[in-house]
């Protein structure tokens, strides 16, 4: 038996040398996508995941990255901080080389901490809370605007275009909604003759907001700006019309989902939504919309185009880094300049935010999101 020992050691050594090297050549490169797949924002999450898969499929058809296929690994964060941490840890443990995704800021913020600790890049496609890129984390990027940009945009629109003087702001106490509400209030504070007559929260998951709306009605607002998510937004719009609250109903960019319209029904007509440009308003996104429709059979949802870009930016960074080393990918992502995406040209600034973002106002007309045009 003794004689065989050196041979078996040799075999073990050879196997040990071959197995990881040979495996890595063929093993897919894993990209993580944390999104809500259950709860009120599940549709938005599924659309984002679809966008990521489409980007990966197209890249794989062109030969993948560094000669390897790309595999999308998803995890359900349910828009919840605790579940977000679990989802992020799950992705890290699954061996993802980078992460592109997220929807609710309340989940994305704690997730970013997990990714930072693990040294994994995180490109956010829809989480707009400013805090995300203000933590001093070098691994966090985002290809969408921040709520301290959306808030002032909404404030200017309400005052300049709608000529509003009395403004009611409703949030839902989540990180995103509260942040956007406060950014809007701050932006309105300096404007002469403008009063924020109402600033309060509703409880997500509830269905009856008539008590809040009755109070708002008694304050006679020119505009009500709701900064929460579409699950409550649709109900709120419906009850807003039913209670005959005066003024315009306007909502933040978590209400640009088609489900909002389905839920609000006839009450959706005339609702205004501040939003990053949707895919249908982006000239470069035509092919993307067609490919998405062909693959999934419905419209791409508000954030899947941003996710598609986020995944492609990450793939481009892996190519530039010429390795799947997590730290090298972070360094390469930070050097993203003039990336030609379907949502426009993308460069990341020192904080990891997208430089030069646009917002637009959508108006729901006949059950469709259309670009707002001032009434003649």
């Amino acid at each position: 038996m003794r004689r065989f020992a050196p041979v078996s050691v040799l075999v073990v050594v050879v196997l040990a040398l071959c197995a990881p090297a040979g495996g890595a050549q063929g093993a897919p490169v894993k990209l993580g996508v944390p999104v809500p797949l259950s709860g009120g924002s599940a549709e938005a999450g599924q659309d984002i995941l679809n966008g990521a898969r489409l980007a990966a499929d197209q890249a794989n058809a062109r030969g993948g990255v560094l000669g390897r296929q790309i595999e999308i690994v998803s995890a359900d964060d349910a828009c919840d901080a605790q579940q977000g941490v679990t989802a992020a840890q799950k992705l890290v443990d699954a061996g993802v080389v980078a992460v592109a995704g997220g929807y609710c800021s309340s989940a994305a913020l704690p997730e970013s901490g997990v990714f930072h600790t693990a040294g994994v890049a995180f490109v956010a496609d829809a989480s707009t809370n400013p805090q995300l890129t203000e933590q001093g984390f070098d691994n966090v990027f985002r290809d969408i605007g921040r709520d301290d940009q959306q808030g002032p945009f909404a404030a200017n629109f309400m005052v300049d275009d709608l000529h509003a003087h009395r403004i009611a702001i409703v949030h839902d106490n989540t990180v995103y909604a509260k942040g956007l509400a406060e950014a809007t209030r701050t932006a309105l504070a300096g404007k002469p003759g403008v009063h924020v007559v109402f600033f309060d929260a509703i409880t997500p998951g509830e269905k009856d907001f008539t008590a809040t709306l009755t109070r708002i009605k008694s304050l006679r607002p020119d505009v009500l700006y709701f900064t929460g998510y579409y699950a409550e937004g649709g109900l709120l719009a419906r009850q807003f019309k039913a209670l005959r609250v005066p003024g315009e109903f306007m909502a933040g960019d978590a209400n640009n989902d088609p489900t909002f319209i389905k839920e609000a029904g006839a009450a959706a007509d005339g609702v205004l939504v501040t939003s990053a440009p949707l895919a249908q308003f982006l000239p470069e996104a035509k092919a993307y919309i067609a490919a998405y429709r062909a693959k999934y059979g419905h419209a791409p949802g508000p954030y899947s185009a941003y996710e598609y870009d986020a995944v492609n930016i990450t793939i481009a960074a892996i190519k530039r880094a010429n390795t799947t080393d997590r730290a090298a990918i972070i360094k390469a992502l930070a050097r993203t300049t003039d990336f030609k995406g379907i949502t426009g040209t993308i460069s990341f600034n020192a904080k990891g935010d997208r430089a030069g973002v646009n917002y637009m106002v959508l108006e729901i007309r006949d059950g469709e999101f259309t670009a707002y045009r001032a009434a003649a």
Partner: protein
Amino acid sequence: MDVALQQLVNGLTVGAFYALIALGYTMVYGIIRLINFAQGDLYSVGAFIGLSMLSLLAGLHLRNPLVLTALGLVVSMGATGLLGVLIYRVAYRPLLRSPLSILISAIGASLTLEYSLLLIYSPSFLVYPSLFDTGGPALGDLVVSWMQVTIFLVSLALMLALYVLVHRTKLGLAMRALAINQDAARLMGIDVSRVIAATFFVGSALAAFGGVMTGLYYGQISFLMGFLAGLKAFTAAVLGGIGNIPGAMLGGFIVGIVESLATGYISGRWKDVVTFGILILILVVRPRGLLGERVVERM
């Protein structure tokens, strides 16, 4: 004044839903002293079965909203009632003698229902067809829809019917006998298991009625909708004096109105703090709840 009245209407509407769910909590507790945590989820199940039924009937080109609603309600209440009985048979009956295990079993039943709905229907919310418009009687600035009036009146009628069932029928007599002493009731020839099953059926069917009406009125249902509503309904049942039927109704309306007034006059963010603060206060002063004075003879 208009605003206060409007808040009262808002509160009564929400309160009617709480009361419908609270009745199930209170009936089951009255008979077997179990907090049936699945009660709120039976309300969700009712809403989903109602939606399935409405979709099915729409597929058969039925258009009359009243017929649709009536059929949806009957099927949903019947099916949810049977589900309630099934849960009792499977999850509660074997554990009737071990109060702690049965409570855990109830939590298990609740989670099972929630995540079955997630898997069978949707992880997100679903939208109900809007069968009725939001029109209502012209009362100046006060907005009340016919639908709200109907929900309120039918809920009251159902609660009254339940009261009559418990206090004026043989089944009700058996229920009350059970509540006082199960063994004595069994010795008197009462089929204990059947009476408990009947209680579960009635409680679940009432929750299903609330679920379908929620869908029709608010237009949106989700697998987790029973969680928050169930919590508030449980609060209502305790507030009214758990085990007491008029107490559950009163508790439901009080919780609804307090929430509405707290939102309207203090702040939406403080609503739950105020509601539960009042609950604690009432329970400190009256540990048995508002109408729960006769502990021995519950219901």
